[in-house]
């Protein structure tokens, strides 16, 4: 290109030097903008932009959702302190709107005046249940109001809370709760009547306790018998008397990592259909792989119509439990994570996987996997080839670089603007102290901002957090994200939990004229058809594939309803349900911009 051209060298020098000079001059020599500078204020003729494309507003305090998480930290750096806690969204009273459940820490040690907790304990201890009294005002506005009904509900969950699962395990049409704790877990049967939320504890009767450190859990019908079974992810064998004084690379006291303790196998409980469960952890093969489970998601990942289980493990290989079906009458699983390409990162390292979500991110009809990791490492997107073989596409899709500065925990797939492409939100918060926050004297120097990554419809993601309002700029120690349309306006909202911080309810205020359809799909017995694959066909013939699910994210339970963005299409849609036996059921001419309740036939 340059050969034989006498002027080319000089031109090249000029070309390479000036941009650099300009860039350096701009960055190195600039002075802070003076106060009163014209550039610091908008001209009066240009009002600030309203209704930006992506916007969330925290309405927790304004709507009565008042909750502050407490971890009982006292300076000993106990491993359990920064891990919790989660929460969930579920219509507990069957009135058509989502209620809120939030898990709480509890005292780890008896009171000691010489070592008081850094933050005061909550006035109302234990997990809390907030009833949603959503009202439609005459002017069409939706008014959210939450009432703490914990005491009246009978829920007494005073353990050291971690995560939760929701599902109607007794097929009575009411959503039950499983609470995973650092310590004994609890199963709460929903016995609500006449709009009054009520629970009764069934842990012992159902035989689903797990006294170890459990984190996330999932209700899933693994044997297709119509009854929801229960998978519980367990972390490591830490206990207060096993506490180890761990240190950072320089020798400074620090929180331990998961490798400081032995991993624990997860638990799998089979629903016997009579209110009791059978522990089949060992017989099913699950117990063979002790690890450090933090997140769990269930989906048919290899296209054989059986629901598989994927577990995100902290600094140990992730597990993909392939469902082999029944053998000798018992469900059996084998771990195929390594061969499927989902066990470790592209460079063969076990990553510190925390949050996990499954969904069709590239629009090819199968469920892909996205999971969150430590800062300095990248979050990982595994794209499914439809047969259970995955390829790490983090770097081709914009997922890798944007995640490097953050330690990600909860994550959900959300079509923020209902354009039909699934976007991603990630709740961030460090586990290793942040230098600047230590210098500033922050008692919990682990704070980071959360992220919103928008899908361009071609499977490429852009971090638009800085354009999504203050909620994606706050510095907090965020942990769980739960997804659901809390005000039933056809836009997916987010419940956010923070360690040693307030729970937030992020209402989706994004400016989008796109159409949508909401689906609640019930089994013949009247419970949410968890695990069911749904195809949604728009008028233009394009299909979107979704899964009825409440699991995924981190320590969280999501709304079981499926909310699908339709883009500009205002035409009626067709919905196809594919059952695990391959049979199909169709609903035609469903009107957009509203919710539909669909019931599967026997």
């Amino acid at each position, binding site marked *: *290109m*340059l*050969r034989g051209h006498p002027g080319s*060298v000089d031109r*090249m*020098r000029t070309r*390479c*030097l000036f941009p*650099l*000079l300009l*860039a*350096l*001059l701009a960055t*190195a*020599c600039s002075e802070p903008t003076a106060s009163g500078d014209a550039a610091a204020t908008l001209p009066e003729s240009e009002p600030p932009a309203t209704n930006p494309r992506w916007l969330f507003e925290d309405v927790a305090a304004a709507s009565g959702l008042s909750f502050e998480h407490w971890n009982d930290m006292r300076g000993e750096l106990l491993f359990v302190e920064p891990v919790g806690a989660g929460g969930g969204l579920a219509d507990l009273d069957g009135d058509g709107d989502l209620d809120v459940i939030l898990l709480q820490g509890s005292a780890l040690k008896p009171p000691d005046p010489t070592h008081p907790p850094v933050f005061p304990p909550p006035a109302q201890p234990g997990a809390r249940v907030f009833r949603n009294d959503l009202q439609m005002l005459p002017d069409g506005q939706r008014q959210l109001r939450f009432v703490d009904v914990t005491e009246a509900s009978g829920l007494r969950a005073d353990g050291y809370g971690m995560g939760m699962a929701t599902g109607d395990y007794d097929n009575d049409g009411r959503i039950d709760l499983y609470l995973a704790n650092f310590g004994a877990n609890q199963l709460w049967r929903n016995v609500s009547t006449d709009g009054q939320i009520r629970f009764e504890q069934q842990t012992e009767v159902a035989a689903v306790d797990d006294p170890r450190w459990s984190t996330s859990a999932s209700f899933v019908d693994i044997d297709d018998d119509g009854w929801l079974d229960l998978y519980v992810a367990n972390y490591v064998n830490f206990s207060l*008397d*096993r*506490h*180890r004084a761990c*240190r*950072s*690379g*320089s*020798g*400074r*006291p620090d929180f331990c990592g998961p*490798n400081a303790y032995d991993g624990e196998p997860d638990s799998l409980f089979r629903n016997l259909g009579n209110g009791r469960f059978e522990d089949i952890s*060992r*017989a099913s093969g699950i*117990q*063979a792989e002790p690890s450090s489970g933090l997140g769990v998601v269930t989906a048919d990942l290899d296209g054989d119509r059986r629901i598989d289980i994927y577990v995100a493990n902290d*600094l*140990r290989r992730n597990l993909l439990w392939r469902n082999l079906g029944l053998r*000798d009458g018992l469900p059996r699983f*084998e771990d195929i994570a*390594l*061969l499927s*390409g989902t066990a*470790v990162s*592209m*460079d*063969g*390292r*076990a990553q510190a996987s925390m949050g996990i979500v499954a969904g069709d991110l590239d629009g090819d009809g199968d469920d892909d996997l996205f999971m969150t990791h430590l*800062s300095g490492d990248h979050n990982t997107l595994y794209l499914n080839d439809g047969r259970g073989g995955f*390829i790490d*596409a983090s*770097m*081709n899709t*914009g997922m*890798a*670089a944007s995640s*490097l*500065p953050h330690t990600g925990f909860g994550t959900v797939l959300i079509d923020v603007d209902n354009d039909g492409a699934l976007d991603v939100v990630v709740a961030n918060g460090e586990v*290793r102290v942040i*230098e*600047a926050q*230590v*210098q500033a004297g922050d008692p919990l120097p682990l704070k980071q901002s959360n992220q919103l990554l928008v899908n361009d419809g071609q499977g*490429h993601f852009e971090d638009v957090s800085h354009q999504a309002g203050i909620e994606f700029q706050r510095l907090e120690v965020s942990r769980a994200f739960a997804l659901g349309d809390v005000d039933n306006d056809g836009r997916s909202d987010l419940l956010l939990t923070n360690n040693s911080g307030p729970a937030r309810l992020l209402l989706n205020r994004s400016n989008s004229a796109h159409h949508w359809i909401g689906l609640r799909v019930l089994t013949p017995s009247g419970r949410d058809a968890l695990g069911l694959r749904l195809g949604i066909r728009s008028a233009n013939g394009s299909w979107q594939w979704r899964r009825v699910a409440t699991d995924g994210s981190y320590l969280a339970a999501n709304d079981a309803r499926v909310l699908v963005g339709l883009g500009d299409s205002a035409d009626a849609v067709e919905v196809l349900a594919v059952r695990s036996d391959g049979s199909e059921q169709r609903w035609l001419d469903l009107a957009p911009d509203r919710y539909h309740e669909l019931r599967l036939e026997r």
Partner: protein
Amino acid sequence: MKRRRWALSRCRAWRGLALGLLLCACQPAEPPAIDVAPPPDLAQLDLAVREQFRQLWEADTRDWGALAQWFHVYRYPDSAERCYREAILQQPLEPRWPYLLALLLVEKSDPSAAEYLEAALALAPEAPQIRLQLADMARRQGQAEQAAEGYRAVLAARPKDAAARFGMGQLALQRGDAPAALEWLLPLAEEQPNAAELNYALGTAWRLQGDATRAAAALERVPDSNLHQLPLQRDDPWQAAMQQMDRGSRMLTRRGIRASREGDHARAARLFGAAVQSDPDGVEERLNWALALSQLGRHEAALAQIDAALNRSVADSDMQLRVRTEQARLLTLAGQPTQAERLLQALLDDHPEQLRARLELARLLHTRGDMSGALAQYAQLRAAGAASPELVFWQAAALLALPDRAAAAEQLRRDLHDDPERQRLQLLQWRLLATDPRADRQSLNSARDQTLALTPSPNVLQVETLAMLLAGSGDHERAARWQQAVVSALEQAAPAQAALVESLHIARRRLTLYREARRPLKAWEPTERPLALRIQVPGGG
């Protein structure tokens, strides 16, 4: 072409000079005091780390680059960044500072990282690590073309550069081009067969190619734990020098573990010893040092470190119980099993829930031939919920060695029902069959055929089981031929591995039986070990 290279080089020189001039020119006449302070937690750092900082901080002339690296390696990124910026001002022609600053900025996903790498490249156009970082960064950002260009530029100057070849392989994987990936990765794997990331990439490539067998073989070479992984050897002297600065006991421990993993126990012991120097009160550091010394046969020194660790540990803490368990293990290795047994019994009297200690006691009793004692411990472990593949195997092996054939049969039946995929248990069950005089020929033949089909490259455990089955069905000639293959392999390997001598004795005894046309009497010997040593299939086998 030459003219172009000259132009590029002149261009980079200009850019370097420009950067230097700019960085200097932008300084105010009286530079403001840089906002860097000693870490607030300095008093809590390892002794050696504190001393390192003191020397840098109190030096007559402050070496900002060295100070930046100190902050960098010990994870004070904000201070490190400020120091690097100051170092750039002080030494504008030194390429290391913009380079290392860029590495910090990459972690923050700060787009200016690329500018600093470009600036470093302008100052040191021949340093391949800068181009590699730029290319890796482009790859992470999905800019495949730009990344490939960077790797190719490195390879043009250094065709054997491992990082660049690996990068090209990864790019091929990213676009799903398995044949191209294999073309880059296979030769590299011959040079660095143990690099974990390379083996994983190979596994992925074979998987994409649809070759599950090769994929599984490559993936088997990726260790379970990150701690035990050997990384791809990359040529980055600047980063290596910075890493060498790390005198923290954690890093020394990590390097010690790596050395141990590589089989370099002497180096491991040196590194663990240095970790103890860095943190003399560290219990874990002393325990690691003890284990490494024991590997070198320095039992007395190892046990002295165990004592030192016990003195520094909190009474009845998990760590102290772990050290006591390891003490018993080291005593066994030092030839004092009776004392070890007493120690473990005492520990378990106080802490019956200590599964690790109980497993160690079971192992010790098993090794000493006390099968009843070992079985009592195995039973307690199983009752406590422990069911690792190792435990399950050894429990069955102990029952067979006792021999309590009925109990062994029942235990194997139960465990195989729970997990039919456990091949080693299956082999034990077939051995039980082979040593049963009432076994019918059909069952024996079926077991024999399944054993034969297990693998094209069988190990000692598999081949001895096969020989037993052959002898059990009366085919003593073939049994002897297979058993001879085991004896030959062990004879070859035993001189270098003393632990194989007992296995060789057992193998020879079995060979004698088959030559005398007799069936084996015992399915498992008390001192027998399941060996993974590969056996050459005998002619006519």
